[in-house]
C-alpha cells in the first residue's frame, strides 16, 4: 500500500529539512508483530518556518521528531537536513549534525540533570565541543540565560529542583540554543505547564526564533497552541499525515474530518458556546493492526466502503492546503483512482 503521498513537498532552495517515506516500527515482544508508529510520512520545513505537528497520543508525532533527530534510527525513508542525508550517517557524523539541530522535551524537570548546577548544564555543550575560551563560554551562557529570563547568578549556584517547571523549560531552551543550531524540534514543550506560564514560554519561543533565525518543528496535541506558533500545520493520525495546511487556513476551513474533531474538542473559554456534544467517541485503534484503507475510517462519520479499502493520498485542494481524504469537508471528492476503475 502506498504512503500518504508527497504532493505537499515543495521544491525550493529554502528547504532546510526534507523527510520522505519515514517509517518507524517497534517489535512487540517475540510475537513477530510490530507497532506501526510512523508509516511512511513525508514532510518538509523551509528555513525560518515553524511547522506544527499535531495529533492524539500514539499518533506518532513524538516518534517522528525523535526519528528526524536519529535518536531512534528509522526503519525506512530518508531525512535530509541542510542537504545531508542523516539516516546514512555514522554515529560520530550524527553527533556533529546534532549541534545544528536540537530538541526540547515535554518534561522540563526530568530533562535536566538534577545533581548539577543550572549554569553548568547550559554550558556543557560548549565544553564538549570545545567552543571558545572559558571566558567566552561564560559570557555566552550568561547572555543566553538572561535572554530566556533566568538570572545567571542564581543559575550558577542552583540546581534544577530550585526552579519551577516554567523556569526549567526556559533553561532547557537556553541549553538548546547554546550551540547556535538552525533547527529546534520542540516536543510538547508547554503541555506540562500552566496556561499563564505556557503563554510566557510561547512568546519567548517566538522572540528567540526571530532573534536567532531559527526554524522550528513544534509538536503538540493542542491545536490552539500549535496554531498560535506555526506557519504550517501537519495533522497526524495513527502514523500517517491526514492534512497539511497554512495554520490560518486549517482553522478557517478544516478539510479532514479528523482535523474538525480536534478543533471541536478544544474547550472554549466561554460558557455561552461551550455546550457542545462530544465531538468523537472512542480512541484511536491499535497501531499494531491499523485498519485497512483510511486509518481514520472506524471513527469517521463520512466513511464508506471506499474508505475501508483504498487509502487516500494527499492532494491539493487549495493554496498550500493538502488533504488525504476521499470525502473531505471542503475541496470535493477525491478522483477515483486508476486501480478502482480497473477493478470496476
Amino acid at each position: 500500500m502506498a504512503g500518504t503521498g508527497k504532493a505537499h513537498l515543495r521544491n525550493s532552495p529554502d528547504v532546510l529539512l526534507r523527510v520522505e517515506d519515514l517509517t518507524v516500527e517497534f517489535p512487540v515482544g517475540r510475537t513477530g508483530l510490530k507497532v506501526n508508529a510512523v508509516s511512511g510520512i513525508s514532510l518538509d520545513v523551509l528555513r525560518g518556518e515553524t511547522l506544527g505537528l499535531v495529533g492524539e497520543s500514539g499518533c506518532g508525532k513524538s516518534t517522528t521528531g525523535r526519528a528526524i533527530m536519529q535518536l531512534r534510527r528509522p526503519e525506512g525513508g530518508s531525512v535530509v537536513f541542510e542537504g545531508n542525508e542523516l539516516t546514512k550517517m555514522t554515529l560520530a557524523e550524527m553527533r556533529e549534525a546534532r549541534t545544528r539541530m536540537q530538541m526540547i522535551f515535554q518534561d522540563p524537570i526530568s530533562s535536566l540533570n538534577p545533581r548539577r548546577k543550572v549554569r553548568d548544564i547550559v554550558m556543557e555543550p560548549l565544553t564538549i565541543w570545545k567552543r571558545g575560551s572559558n571566558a567566552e563560554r561564560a559570557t555566552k551562557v550568561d547572555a543566553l540565560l538572561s535572554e530566556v529570563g533566568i538570572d545567571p547568578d542564581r543559575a550558577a549556584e542552583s540546581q534544577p529542583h530550585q526552579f519551577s517547571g516554567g523556569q526549567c523549560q526556559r533553561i532547557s531552551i537556553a541549553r538548546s540554543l547554546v550551540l547556535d543550531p538552525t533547527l529546534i524540534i520542540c516536543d510538547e514543550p508547554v503541555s506540562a505547564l500552566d496556561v499563564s506560564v505556557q503563554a510566557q514560554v510561547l512568546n519567548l519561543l517566538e522572540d528567540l526564533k526571530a532573534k536567532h533565525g531559527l526554524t522550528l518543528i513544534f509538536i503538540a496535541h493542542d491545536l490552539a497552541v500549535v496554531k498560535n506558533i506555526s506557519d504550517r500545520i501537519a495533522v497526524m493520525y495513527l502514523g500517517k499525515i491526514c492534512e497539511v495546511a497554512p495554520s490560518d487556513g486549517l482553522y478557517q476551513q478544516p478539510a479532514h474530518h479528523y482535523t474538525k474533531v480536534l478543533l471541536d474538542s478544544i474547550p472554549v473559554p466561554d460558557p455561552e458556546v461551550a455546550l457542545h456534544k462530544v465531538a468523537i467517541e472512542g480512541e484511536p485503534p491499535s497501531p499494531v493492526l491499523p485498519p485497512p484503507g483510511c486509518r481514520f475510517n472506524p471513527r469517521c462519520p463520512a466513511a464508506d466502503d471506499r474508505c475501508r479499502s483504498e487509502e487516500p493520498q494527499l492532494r491539493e485542494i487549495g493554496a498550500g492546503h493538502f488533504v488525504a481524504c476521499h470525502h473531505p469537508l471542503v475541496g470535493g471528492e477525491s478522483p477515483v483512482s486508476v486501480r478502482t476503475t480497473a477493478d470496476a
Partner: protein
Amino acid sequence: MSIGSTTNITQAALRDVQGPLLELTDVRTHFRTPRGLVRAVDGVSFTLERGRSLGIVGESGSGKTILSRSIMGLLPSKGTERSGSIKFAGTEVGNKSRKEMRHIWGKEMAMIFQDPMTSLNPLMRIGDQIAEPLRLHLGMSKADAAATARRLLQDVRIPEPDRRLAQYPHEMSGGMRQRVMIAIAMACGPTALFADEPTTALDVTVQAQILDLLGEQRRERNMSLVLVTHDLGVVAGHTDEIAVMYGGKLVEKAPTKRLFAAMKMPYTEGLLASIPKLEDQSHSRLNVIPGRPPDLVNPPKGCRFAPRCPYASARCNEEEPPLTATQDDPNHSYACWYPVGSPEYHEARARINASAGVN
C-alpha cells in the same frame, strides 16, 4: 441504582439534612518547613449547594489542590497546621482524624486525581479495584459487587466491560484509566466528587469526553462536583460556579456565566487572556501575566497579586483588599481595590496603552 437498597443509615441521614452541602469558614492550611511556615491555604470561605458544580481555578502554587485535599482530609499528619471550619452536610469534618474520615471517603466524598496511572493499583485487576469499596463500605456480597462493577463500567462508557474487568491498568490507555478512576469514585454513590486536574494528562479529544462524562454523572446522581484546574477553558462549559484562587486566597467567586461576562479581578482577566484562541491569527502575541506566583512563606503585604498586576497602585501594595460582593449580584464577590471596569482601572489601562504607544 441498586446501591440505594444497601445505603446505610448515616448516609441517608446526612442526605436529609437541609442547607448547603459544603460550608467552609476561614479555612487555613499551613505547613511547617525548614524555610518557615508555608501558608498554602490562607483564610478561604465559601459554600457549595447540593448537586451543584464548582470550578476551583488558579496557577500552580495557588493552593487549589491543598484546599480540596483539606476538605477531603487528605493531608500529611506531620507538620500541618489546620484551622477554620469545614462543614460537610452540616457536620464538622475539619477536625476529624483519618480513621473517622474513612467512613466519609468513598460514600460521601470521593476524589479523582490527575495521573490515572499512579492512582490505580498496578497489581490488581480493574474489576477487583472497583469492587473493593463496594464490599468494604457497603458490605456487598462478592457477586453483587462484581455485577455492580460491571454496570459502573458501562456507566462510564467503557466498551466490552466483561473483558475490561479482568484486565490490569497497564493494559488500558490513559483515558480508559481515568474512566476507571471515575467508576471507582462513583461506586458508593458519593454526594460530592472532587476532581483534581482530571484531564490535564489527557489528549484534547479525550478531555472533552471525560468532562462530558463527569457532567452527565453529576446530573444523573445529583452529586456535587468540585473541578480543580488551571485552565479556565475547562471549567467554562462544565461548572455552575467558579472560584479563582491566588496565593492561598479566594480572589473571585461568581456563577460561571457571570464571571465570564463581568469578571472583576485583574488576575482572572489575565488568566483568560493567556489562553491561545483559535480565532486569533497565528503568531499573535499572547497576553501574559508577568512574573510568578508569590512565595507563600513571605507573601506580599497588601494584595498578593499586586506585584504582578498591571493596574496596581500604592494602596494595593499596602492594604489587603477584602472579598466583597458586587452591588448588583450578591453571588459574585471579588478581592480587589480597583476592579476591572472601575474608573481607576480604565485610568491605569489608558496609562499602560499610552506608554506602549497603543490607542
